[in-house]
Structure formats: C-alpha cells, structure tokens
C-alpha cells in the first residue's frame, strides 16, 4: 500500500474522532498490537534487505507521526473532559453561606471585662464579697451611721434586721482591709441592689469598686489612676474633670465627669446641657473607715472609687434604656 495514502487515511479518520473512547479505538486499530502498523511491519518481512530498510524507516516515521497525533488529540480530549467536569460542578457563589452559629457575651460582661482588664494592668487584683451583706459592712463600717438618708427603706432591700442586699460594692473594701494589711490594691466587680424600678433604675445593677491603700497614697494619685482608666476606656482625647462631692466613706471626695460622648460637650439631653457626664465617684478613704478596720490613719492613706457598669456600657454602646440589659432580648444581645 502506498504510505502516502495511509497517511491521508489516518488524517481523515483522526478528524472524525470526537472523544477519548473513539480515540482509544482508533489507537488500537492503528497502533495496537494487531493494528495497521503491526500489519505493515509484518509485511516488511517479505521485502528484500535494501527495500526493507527504506520502507521500514518510512513506516517508522509515519508511526511516530501517528503516535504524536494521537497523543496530541488525547491531551486535547482530556483537557476538554476536565473542563466539562468543572463546568458540571458550577455553583452560584452568591448563594448564602452557612454562617457558624456562635454565641456572644452579654454587653455588661463585655464592659465589666474591659474595666477589669484596665485595672489589673495597673496592678489591681480582683476581690469579691457576698451579695447579701451585713448592715455593718454595707453601712456602718463605711461611716454611714444609723440615721443616714442612704439607709432609708426606700433604697435598701432588707432581708432581716442587720442583713441587707448590698447597695454598693463598697463593703468589699472593708472586708478586704479587715483581712489584709496594707498595701491593698483591689477592684471588686459585682451586682448591687436598690429598691428602685423605673425607666432609669433597675432593682439590680452592677458596680466596680476600687481601692488603693498604702503609706503614701495621695489625692493626686487618685487623679492619676482614674485619668489613665478613663483614657483607656473612652479614648485618650476624652476630656475629664474632678469636682468636689460628698460620700460618707471618703474625704476629700470627687465626682469624675467625662466630656459628653453624645454631644462632644456642646450640650444635649443626656448630659442635661452641661456637656459633662458623671462617670464615677471617688475620694480619699475616710480616716474613720481606717480606724474601723484597724489601720492607723496617721500612717496609711488611700483612695477608693466606684462606678456603675450599666452606665458605662450605656455610654459606650449608646444604649438609652437601662432595662434593656435585663430583658435579654435576642435582638439586643446579638448586637454586641
């Protein structure tokens, strides 16, 4: 057979091969053990030496050519196959994904943790005391005598004579000083209770109490520590001021105001047009309190402070109703 026509025939047949399986059939028919080339090579045996060499070389060339062609097509079909498979697994990436369901902490916990973190970084340890407290620790030892207005039935939940739900976290000050010699550096976060239930009061809320007592603690140190706290909590540019106030268990006492975070000091409803927001109460520990816990007020000085966690959380998150913290509405909790 004329090799030229074989070549043409192969070319024609290859052009009609449309997929891998027919290519495979073709390959077996042409290049297989019993294929066309095997047959041609078989035929060589009948030729003389000279012819066999020439013809054999031509056949070999033609076979190599055919193999190459088949390989080329195979790669092509394989690529096509891959692409087809890929297309078959097409997805619409705009379909919604499966967002993992994770929970969140309560905003009060978040705020409390932030406050605690700042003070522990300043060297304060966390202390605690009971929620149901002796009148003595809640009032008397804090220099709040029996007929002080803060002890009115309206404010304090009584459990039995001499036992109350603590109205502030300040009793932890007393308990800590009673059981530790100075220096004392603690913060005491916790729930406190007052007989109040209206739009701006809940019967339970949270406070963080702080106390730093040592030999040479000054009023200026109180300013220093609380300034650091406020700048950490509300940002370094937050204006703040200390102004005289009154608490029975501190003297001098100071109320700490920050520049209103709502109106930036220009005056609004939240800050009652003053441009300032009360954020915490503080002062130098009253000598009487030191005497009560057995410290010598001539030797030891210190400062204490207390803040409402709800109030700080409200300002930080812009929450306008304190009761939201206790409805535990998912539409609220999922925002933080």
């Amino acid at each position: 057979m004329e090799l030229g026509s074989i070549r043409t025939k192969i070319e024609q047949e290859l052009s009609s091969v449309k997929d891998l399986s027919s290519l495979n059939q073709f390959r077996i028919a042409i290049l297989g053990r019993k294929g066309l080339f095997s047959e041609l090579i078989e035929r060589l045996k009948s030729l003389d030496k000279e012819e066999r060499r020439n013809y054999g070389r031509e056949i070999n060339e033609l076979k190599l050519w055919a193999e190459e062609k088949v390989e080329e097509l195979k790669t092509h079909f394989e690529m096509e196959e891959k692409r087809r498979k890929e297309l078959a697994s097409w997805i619409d990436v705009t379909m919604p994904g499966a967002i993992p369901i994770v929970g969140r902490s309560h905003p009060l916990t978040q705020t409390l943790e932030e406050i605690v973190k700042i003070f522990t970084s300043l060297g304060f340890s966390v202390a605690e005391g009971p929620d149901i407290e002796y009148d003595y620790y809640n009032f008397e030892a804090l220099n709040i005598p029996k007929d002080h207005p803060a002890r009115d039935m309206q404010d304090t939940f009584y459990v039995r004579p001499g036992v109350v739900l603590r109205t502030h976290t300040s009793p932890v000050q007393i308990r800590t000083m009673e059981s530790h010699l100075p220096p004392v550096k603690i913060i005491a976060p916790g729930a406190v209770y007052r007989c109040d239930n209206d739009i701006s009061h809940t019967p339970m809320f949270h406070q963080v109490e702080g106390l730093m007592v040592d030999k040479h603690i000054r009023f200026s140190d109180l300013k220093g520590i609380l300034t650091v706290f406020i700048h950490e909590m509300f940002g370094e540019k937050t204006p703040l001021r200390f102004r005289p106030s009154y608490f029975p268990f501190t003297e001098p006492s100071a109320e700490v105001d920050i520049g209103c975070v709502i109106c930036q000091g220009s005056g609004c409803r939240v800050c009652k047009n003053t441009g300032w927001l009360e954020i915490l109460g503080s002062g130098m520990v009253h000598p009487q309190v030191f005497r009560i816990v057995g410290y010598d007020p001539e030797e030891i000085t210190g400062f204490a402070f207390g803040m409402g966690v709800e109030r700080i959380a409200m300002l930080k998150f812009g929450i306008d109703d304190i009761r939201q913290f206790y409805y535990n509405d998912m539409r609220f909790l999922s925002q933080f």
Partner: protein
Amino acid sequence: MRVPLEWLQEFIPLDMEPQELAKRLTMRGLEVENIEEAEFSFKNVVVGNVLTVEPHPQAERLKVCKVDIGERAIPVVCGAENVQAGKKVPVALIGACLAGGAIIEKKEIKGITSYGMLCSEKELGLSDDQSGIFILNGDARPGDKLETVESLRDTVFEINVPPNRGDCLSIYGIAREVAAIMDKKIELPSFEYVTDGDEGVEHFISLDVKDLDACPRYVLLMIKGIKVNKSPYWMRRRIIKCGMRPINSIVDVTNYVMLELGQPLHAFDYEKLKERRIEVKVADSNLTFRTLDGQERGLIPGDLLICDGHGPVAIAGIMGGENSEIGEDTETVALESAFFNPFFIRSTARRLGIKSEASLRFEKGIDVDTVEYAGKRAIYLMHMLSGGHVLDGKKEAFKKEEKKRIFVKYGRINDVLGIILSPEEIGRLLASIDINVVGEEDEGFIVSIPSFRHDINEYMDVIEEVARLHGYEHIPATTPVTSIQPLISSKKDRFLSETRQYLYSAGFYQVINFSFFSRKDLDNFVIPDDDERRKCVMILNPISKELEATRTFIAQGLMKNIAYNLNRGSKNLKLFEIGKIFIEREEGLPLEYHSLALAITGRERDYFWKGSPPEYDFFDLKGVIEGLLRIFNLDVEFRKGTEPFLNSSVSGDIHLGEEKIGWLGEVKEGVLKAYGIEQRVYCGELMFDKVMKMGNLERKYNPIPRYPHVIRDFSFYIDESIPVSKVMGMIKEVSPFIVSVGVFDMFRKERRSISFRVLFQSYEDTLKDEEVNKIQDEIVKRLTAIDGIVLRS
C-alpha cells in the same frame, strides 16, 4: 436648692455670666444641675403708667383709665379695684397674647373703646393671683416690654447641695460660697428692729426648755395687732421660684426668712396657746397629735415637742399643729426661732415619714449664732407686711458652746493632696470661708470652725476644704508610689472565663437576669417542700411579688427569657447564665453559690437551602455539658433523671462520684406552660462551685503516636436496661491499646442495636492484625457473657 439669681444679687453683685458662675460653683462642690431661665408665656405686654382713672359712664363697676405706654397714651377699660393713677401696670396691647392663650383685641365696652387690657398676675402666668391688677415696681419704664422688667427677669439655679452642706440650704449660704469664689466678703442684711417700748414679750409668754441638749437654743419673739393678708408680689415670687407655695403674709415671712438665711421659723397664733407659755420637752409617753396638714400623727417617747402647758402645739422642727396655726384672723404672733438637735429631728422625721423644708434644714444642723437675728428679721418683715406692733425683748434659752477648734499639720495637707502650698496660702484659702487660724504650733495650725459648718469635725475635713478651695483642677495627676505586689488571679475567674468562651463558641448567648425570683417559680417547677431550693431568702420590702426573694436556681430565669424571646419571634435559642444563687440558713449570712444554667430550644437555624437543620434534642445539650466538663478534666456520670420538672424519660442527673452536681433534660410540658412556652425546651443546671472545686485546668502533653491506629466496628443487641455508657466502659477496660470507644449507630426494632467504633493504638509498635483480633474476640466474649447483650452477626 433652688436659687433665684435676682435674690442672690441682693447679697453679692454677680459680675459674670450665669454659665460661668454655675461652672465655678460646680467645681466648688455645689453642682448646678440646671440653669432655669425665666420663660414668659405672654407676648406684646408693656409697662404702662396709669395717668387717670375715671368711672365708666355706663357701667358702675368698670373704670376708664388713661395709660401712658411710652410714645402715647391709650384708653383702657378695667374692672379691677386696685387701679390707681400713678401706678405702673402691665398693659396687654392689641394683638397681645396672654398666658391662657387669649388674644387681645380692640373692644367696645358699653360705648367706650378699650385699646388694651390691664393684667393680673394670673393672666400673665406669673402666679395664681387674680385678685387685682399686677402692680409693678415704681422704677419700671412705660413702654418697655414687660419681659425686660428687671424684677421679672430671672435665672434660677438648681443646686445639688451635698448632704453634709446644710449651711448651703439658703440664699445667704450660697452667697457666702459665691463670695469666697470672688474673694469678697458679705454681710447679713441690716434692718431696723423697732419695738413698742411699753410692752415686753416677758409679760405675755413664758418659756421653759426642759432639755438644752435636745434644744440648745430657743428664742421667742412677738408681734401684736397684725392683719393677716396677702404678701406682696416680690416675696411671693421669690417663694414660688424657690419651689414653695405662698400662703399668707405671716407664714410667707417665716418661709421667706428660712429660704433667705436657712433658719426655719414657726409662727404660733398666740391666742390659741392655751396657757400662754411654751415648753420644749422630750415626750415621755405615746400620744397622737394633729399636724397642720390635717393628719393625725402618732408620737412616741423620745420625740421632741413644743407644748403650751396643755399639750403639744408642734413637733419640734418638723411641723406645727393645727391647734395653733396662723389663720386669717390671727392678731398676735409668737414666733419661734430655735436650734434643735439634729438627732431628734432626724429620728422623728424619718419615723413619721415627713420631709419638710424645716426638718430638712434642722436635720443637717443650722447656724446657732443667727437664731435670734433670723427671728428678728422675720418679725421686722411681718411688721412691714402685716402691720401691728412689735413687742420689746425676747424669751430665750441658750446653751452656748465654744467654737470647734481643729489642729492640722501643714505637711499633712500637702502630703494627702499631693500639692505644695505654703502655710500662708492655706490660711488665706481657709479664711475665705471663715475658717480662721487662731494659733500655730508644732508645724501646724489651730483653726476655728464657724458655727454653721457642722460637717467639719476633724483635720481631714479641713484638708477637704483646702482641696476644694484650691480647686481639684489645680491638683496634679500623679503616679502612685507603692510597692509592687503579685496579682492574685483567682481560680474562679479562670473557670468562669473558660466556661464562657466555650459556650460562646458552642453557640450560646449569655443572659443576665435579676437575682430575684418568686415563690411562684418554685411552684411552677414543682420543687418539693423539703428541697434545698425551697430555702429562699425573702426580701422584707420587695418591689413586687415577682421579685420577692433571691433565687435558689437559675433555670427559672431562662424560662422567662425563652418565653420573652418566643413572643418576639426568636424561635431558636441557646442561652446560658452563670451567676449567684442564694440558700437561706439559720445563722449567719445566707449561703451563696455560683450556678450555671443552660437552655436550648428550636433548632440551629430555621432553614438552610441545603437541607433543613434538625430540631435540638437531649443529646445536643448533653454534648455541650460533656464538652464543658472535659475542659476541667472532670469525668462525670449521667444517671437517670430525678428532677420533678423534667420529663423522667428524657432527663438525667449529673454525678461526680456519688455527688450530684447537676441535672439536664427536657422540661415538662406543664412547667413550660406556666411560663407560656409552647415548644420543647432542654435545660440543665450545674453547681459551678462543685465544678470549680473538683475540676482543674491542668494540661499535660501526651506524645503523638508514631504508629498507625486500627479501627474495628462492633454491633450488639443491647437490652434497654443496660446503660450504653457502662458497655463502653467495659469495652475500654478490655485492653490498654483501646484508646477510644464511640457509638456510630443506634436503632430500635424489637431489640436495641448499638454499633461501636473502637480505636486501637500502640505507642510502641504497629499493631498486628492477630493482636487486634485477639482483643476483638475478648471484647465479644466479655460483652456477650452479659445477660441482655447479643452480638449482631
């Protein structure tokens, strides 16, 4: 304390803007909470000067006035009796708008055209008085808009006076502080006290103060022949601006002087005093007494009373009696100006629940030195407003005491405050508020405290004054010099924080509920009578029945949260709360424990397009608890549930050894119904203190195995009476090469079939098939030896 600036100006000229003054008072510890600008509800009302008043030709009760309103004079028809020529009056011009909203029009009244209206105080919205035309001060200029008239314009400061600063509960007291701010001195108002020489107080009344400790000073003054009437506008207006109510020309004066000087006064109708005498004594028996507000008050021994020899006529310092009250026809007044011991006033006022303006001031202590002065000032004003003649002299009891003296070291002041002030500077600061240096010794000085400062009793009180006067803003912010201590980090905080982190990532939201609940919750949860949880701490004065006690378990709170959220459309919930619970006990404070409650309801999400997520069930909650306890290296046992509020078939008790540390399960339908919940809820509660006590957060490294593991599966029919956990434990015991046993399938037909997957692992060698086969055979042998376990072929 409400402070009209116009009144304050009488004591000290205020040469600064109200805002600036407010700021400076606030920084001195007298917080100005609100600055109230006078607002007028009228428009287009001017000052008029009445030129002539003539009777109306057609109407007997009307008058025709010619009123100068600046550039011209207009005729105005008027019916009031107090209109006189030469008086300055407010004239509402045509188009004016009055307090009630009335618009003034040109009007013909019986043939005479009126071009405006003369107004009463009520018509202008200034007070309730409508008895006549409002007569303005003589210096008002005709034609000026009424709102610009000085005596009407005013700003009122609302000052939050600290509870220890009773001396600032008066205009004069505030003026004293303002003067100190401005570095000025002020004086008490001077007046001429003119008496009728012939008659002395001592002829009319006697005074007997039985207990000079309860009443260290008592002064009685008298005025006769008065005519009780209405106080003039300026006085009434000041009283109103200070938040009180004008009554009559005698009572108003007592209130006015109290507001002005801080000395509460009481006026008795002398004729009503039965025995013409005043006795101040501490009650020694129970009695009832009708106060001038018409209420019967129960008095007990220890109450300080003012008596007339017959019985009480006033509860000292708190409220007068109806029996001696000033009336329209009172002619003779016996005026009490006294200093009562704050202790008596506080205890009686608190017991009776009375908070009067007088008791408020007496409770904090007033100025004993101005008792007589204030009384005389009041008598002077009564005479001015109500006529009569003032009786000469006074009756007085007075236990005089030395002024307090306090020794302070200069160094101590600077040390405590962290400032450096010289003794001279400190002395000068203190002198500005009448705390004067009276001696110097031992690197310090002795200061004398003015009689009105009851809050200054020891050196720290003086240091506070120095800080306040120096200004907190001038005290630096410093870093404390103190020894470094190791932080005490508590195991509790680490356990809490691990727990919370774990639960957040497990999809739980943290809730915070009040520590309160109701005994109804115990009933809802069918808690038995002898259960510890019945021992709740009752609140003596609860806010409501729902908050009558402190909670003894937390799960009830989660039911309320679930109900709340279901009602608002959130159907899939995973909630937890970690907080305190309280158990009452016989002695000492109630016990406080930490408890952790979890609840799940609904499903992971409502829908997902790949397939609907399954509803939560018992094992979703159990898995969460198992995983949590694993963090704390706790190996707990789940036993059949015993809680009465859980479905007994779908609940378990959590045991740590023999101790029950919690429970979990499906909440009974009846319980859910009590909270208005209509879908299945799985709930659990763990005694967190037990978890903290028995658990730990230790982590120990186990070498990673270098050889491959082998997995074998087994299926058995296991009788329902045999807990699977027991079977799993038995499998594990068979060989140390068994590192885990899991359940990968379970179905129930006639019998229960359970399929286990067992993982074999050696740390020394690759396990050979023969070795594993041997163990496998042993597992089958051991299990099938048990009655109720059959190998599934």
